[in-house]
């Protein structure tokens, strides 16, 4: 009896929901207006259905936050966001298991991925840079110094004018997108020393750097906090700021790619368009510590060539 009741209530609920959605387009439109100015960005058509987004764990919080806002405005749409890593995101989208695959690296950079059908949507930019324990006595590194530190040529901070303190390297795994970017644009392709401590997540890296005297690693800007638990070091005199990345002065940054298999349609298209809307680009993205793609004055291709936009 109890079961039956629940079932009936659920069915009634579904009916009402369906009726609201199909008969009354103005209803959701009104919602849009009330949450503030997203109207022009979202598809004026009713979007419904469900899509699956998978990939980069660095992008997951951002895309999840954006999808929540999107679903509030489009009650009929359901977007689930999974974090499994960039490799997983790229292979899932190439094989058609998901509608959107997120990656911090260009699909062309990963071997074994057939990138010919994939359409790249660069939704944001993430800056990253060397971060050290606050008491190392150094706040600026030249590129050469940075390479020497990470390859193990320099083992004490005093060798480059800092405190008399052994350098402890904190690294990310070989296949991490953050590591790829840092090695390519920060270390000019020199691989970090294999003696380094390696940790999977950026939050663990941050914790280790903040607690270990003499530690240095690399972090995305979104992991820097106001308490100054870690010290972002400037590189060749250029500070790690969003402005310096946008103007092209600070070289260590990567796109956050959302890939679709072919040109997106329906809900997928509506969601991708939403990611490029003002709500996300000027709201969600900077709030979460990332840099909006629309603000970039330079752009980069899969080979790493940088051009003015």
């Amino acid at each position, binding site marked *: 009896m109890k079961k039956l009741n629940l079932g009936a209530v659920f069915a009634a609920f579904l009916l009402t929901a369906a009726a609201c959605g199909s008969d009354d387009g103005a209803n959701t439109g009104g919602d849009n207006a009330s949450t503030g100015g997203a109207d022009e960005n979202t598809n004026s058509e009713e979007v419904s259905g469900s899509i699956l987004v998978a990939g980069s*764990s660095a992008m997951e919080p951002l895309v999840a936050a954006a999808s929540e806002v999107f679903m509030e405005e489009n009650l009929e749409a359901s977007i689930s966001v999974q974090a*499994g*890593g*960039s*490799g*997983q995101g*790229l*292979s899932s989208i190439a094989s058609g298991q998901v509608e959107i695959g997120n990656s911090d690296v260009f699909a062309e950079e*990963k*071997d*074994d*991925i057939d990138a010919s059908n994939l359409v790249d949507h660069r939704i944001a930019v993430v800056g990253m840079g060397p971060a050290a324990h606050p008491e190392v006595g150094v706040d600026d590194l030249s590129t050469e110094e940075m390479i020497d530190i990470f390859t193990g040529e320099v083992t004490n901070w005093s060798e480059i004018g800092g405190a008399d303190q052994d350098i*402890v390297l904190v690294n990310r*795994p*070989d*296949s*991490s*997108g953050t590591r*790829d970017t840092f090695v390519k644009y920060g270390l000019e*392709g020199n*691989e970090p020393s*294999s*003696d*380094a*401590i*390696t*940790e*999977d997540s950026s939050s*663990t890296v941050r*914790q*280790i750097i903040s*607690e*270990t005297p003499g530690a240095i690693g690399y972090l995305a800007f979104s992991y820097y906090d106001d308490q100054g638990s870690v010290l972002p070091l400037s590189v060749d005199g250029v500070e790690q700021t969003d402005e310096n990345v946008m103007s092209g002065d600070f070289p260590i940054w990567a796109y956050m790619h959302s890939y679709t298999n072919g040109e997106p349609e329906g809900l997928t298209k509506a969601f991708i368009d939403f990611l490029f809307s003002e709500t996300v680009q000027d709201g969600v993205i900077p709030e979460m510590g990332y840099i909006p793609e629309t603000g970039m004055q330079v752009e980069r291709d899969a080979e790493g060539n940088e051009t003015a936009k």
Partner: protein
Amino acid sequence: MPATQSVADRLLDKKKTIKKERTGKLVVYTCAAIIILTTLAITLFLVLRGIQAFVADGVSPIQFLTSLEWNPSRSAEQGGPVYGALPFIVGSFAVTILAALVAAPLGIGAAIYMTEIAPSWGRKILQPAVELLVGIPSVVYGFIGLTLIVPFIRENVGGQGFGLLAGMIVLSIMILPTVTSIATDALRSIPNGMRESSLALGATRWQTIRRVIVPAATPMLLTAVVLGMARAFGEALAVQMVIGNSRTIAESLLDPTATLTTIITLNMGHTVPGSTENNVLWSLGLILLVMSYLFIIIVRFLSSRRRFS
């Protein structure tokens, strides 16, 4: 069943019983078959995936097992990627054996205390205390290790804190319940007659424990340790957080190193399924499976040795 039943009733009952028995048999056999099939399927799958790297991608198995260098992302100009898993194999064994060296005396000692010395109240407190350790998720052990043990080692023992010693401490606590509970069962299975005979011959309690009970239970006690080691060998998360994951063999207890499991968990999400790098991770998984088969063979061998009836 009342004894006053008529013959006909009893015959009918028997039919029912037989039917019930058949159903029960079917259920039990099905469960057993499913478990056996699952194990076979997992083994087959892991073997097939694990040999891909050697068969399809041309990684040399000898280099894989003997080379000290692991560098999957090395560029073609620098000599191409190399996959040498020896440091991780050594790391896995080192941390497992070290953990067993700590957990075996502690666990067996606790078991002797519970069964022989303070049977009533000792068991009431110690047994739940040990069993509680099982329920704590491994990520919590890792986090405790990262925030308490690693800084403690760094400040009081030396080194960076991350390394074999930290891994050993965390793992030995994690496998302590396994060792203790199996050792307790082993000691409890010793017939009381042996204790009584020994005491009757004038042996003290200590002499009885040392000369009679422990030797009699040795095969089972070794089984307890081996099962604990099997658990330690396969543990990933907690070890990953404290061992440092550097790709070199540790030269002292304080050096960071990596194990097979930590390399798999660090890299699995970032690599593209089907790529050489991903296949090599499956090969590491295959080594783990082979090891767990070996551990089971050892356990079977130990428990097949003389036991008293």
